[in-house]
């Protein structure tokens, strides 16, 4: 509970009008970033424990999954760009069913995406724009984004299994091709 309270406390600080509008001094900005970053890192502990408990029924067993902190806003995610198989777990916090496009940073290759029922679903690989790749503070090996549509239930959790396959891209049945036209 204390790590959750740490995140609640940080979010409380972020209600200040300077934090919302960006009218704080620069060193205060850095302090806000520090507070929030630390709180999010600590609160992920709860997500890790909870998910392993759900999947194994025993929180004390060694974890099956290690959650990675992703920076999807800069198309960067260590786990997905360095693993040949990984799991995307998605939680829909809204009270109705929805479809959402997920874009997962990966390195170029062929991938298969499996829904929770084991069915292989359509996915598409698109290159990350060069302007994003050149962002000076971005540290990532991801060159592409794997796109698929997640159909999520109200307040529901779903996991998708993603496998990198050693196949020629053109032979893939997951339609992960892209056509490029440029002028």
């Amino acid at each position, binding site marked *: 509970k204390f790590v959750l309270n740490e995140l609640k406390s940080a979010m409380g600080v972020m209600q200040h009008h*300077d934090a*919302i*509008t*960006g*009218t704080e*001094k*620069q060193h205060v*900005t850095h302090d806000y970033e520090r507070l929030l970053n630390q709180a999010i890192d600590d609160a992920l502990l709860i*997500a890790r424990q909870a998910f392993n408990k759900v999947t194994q029924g025993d929180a004390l067993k060694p974890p*099956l*999954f*290690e*959650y990675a902190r*992703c920076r999807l*806003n*800069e198309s960067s995610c260590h*786990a*997905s760009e360095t*693993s040949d*198989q*990984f*799991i*995307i*777990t*998605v*939680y*829909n*916090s*809204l009270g109705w069913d*929805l479809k*959402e*496009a997920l874009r997962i940073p990966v390195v170029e290759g062929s991938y298969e995406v*499996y829904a929770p029922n*084991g069915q292989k679903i*359509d*996915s*598409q690989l*698109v*290159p990350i*724009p060069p*302007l*994003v790749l050149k*962002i*000076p*503070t971005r540290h990532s090996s991801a060159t592409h984004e794997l*796109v*698929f*549509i*997640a159909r*999520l239930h109200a307040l529901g959790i779903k996991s998708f*299994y993603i*496998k990198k396959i050693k196949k020629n891209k053109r032979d893939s049945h997951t*339609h992960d*091709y*892209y*056509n*490029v*036209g*440029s*002028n």
Partner: protein
Amino acid sequence: VRSHGLNVKPTIIDNFENRAKRDTSDLDITFHYYPGCVGNNRVPANRSSGAYIFRPNATSPKQLNPLTTENFNGVLVDEKRVVYDQKVLSVRRHYKELEFIENEWLVGPIDISDDVGKEFAVRYQSDILNNGEFYTDSNGRQVLKRKLNQRPQWNVTLAEPIAGNYYPVTNEIYIENGDKRLTVLTDRSQGGTSLQEGQVELMLHRRLLHDDAFGVGEALNETANGEGLVVRGRHRIFTTKDEVLLRKNILQLHQQPIVFVSEAHIPYDQWL
């Protein structure tokens, strides 16, 4: 463009079609920047554009030139990417199962080598005749009607015709005429306006070199990496007047599904 059974079908991206009404609208997306005003801050009339106030030193912004265009088409999403000068990128995309056009924008780091602060905005130009009226959700509680160069309670003559027509946009800004509506949903609070007929304009990113004397005591010039910040975000564009659909999409854009990525130490069969 193939049919996908949706009510909105973009022909990326020069126009979009409301198939239910068999009606096509033009849509043009352009990027601009306003040079920031530099004042001496001794009296309110001489304030600089800064963290608290938007005060462009021009009555019309400078339009950015597109440098390259790329198209990516696939089974799930069609994308058109346009790179502009001044380090601006626009990715216009349409997911074939989703009922909106998305404009993912990236701005920065803003170049200040010419010692000019800049405030970048995007303009969505449609053929809707909105008669100078537009709607913003202001503080996120209530959609309010705005009228260009007017105030509802008194006669006003705006000394600053750009900034004086900018309003807060928490979630949505739209223009409409009869059955036609152009709604832009924002993924964060931004400033927005409609300065010309059929147009929706939203402020994206700002980098300014002078304090505006409202208290912060610093210029809005974030240089944590020595170059200024890069900002990336999304706008979702709708032509529907379905309030329930819009309301749901507003919440969906702000409370996006939470994504966890984990390495799988188990094979697929065991996971299943």
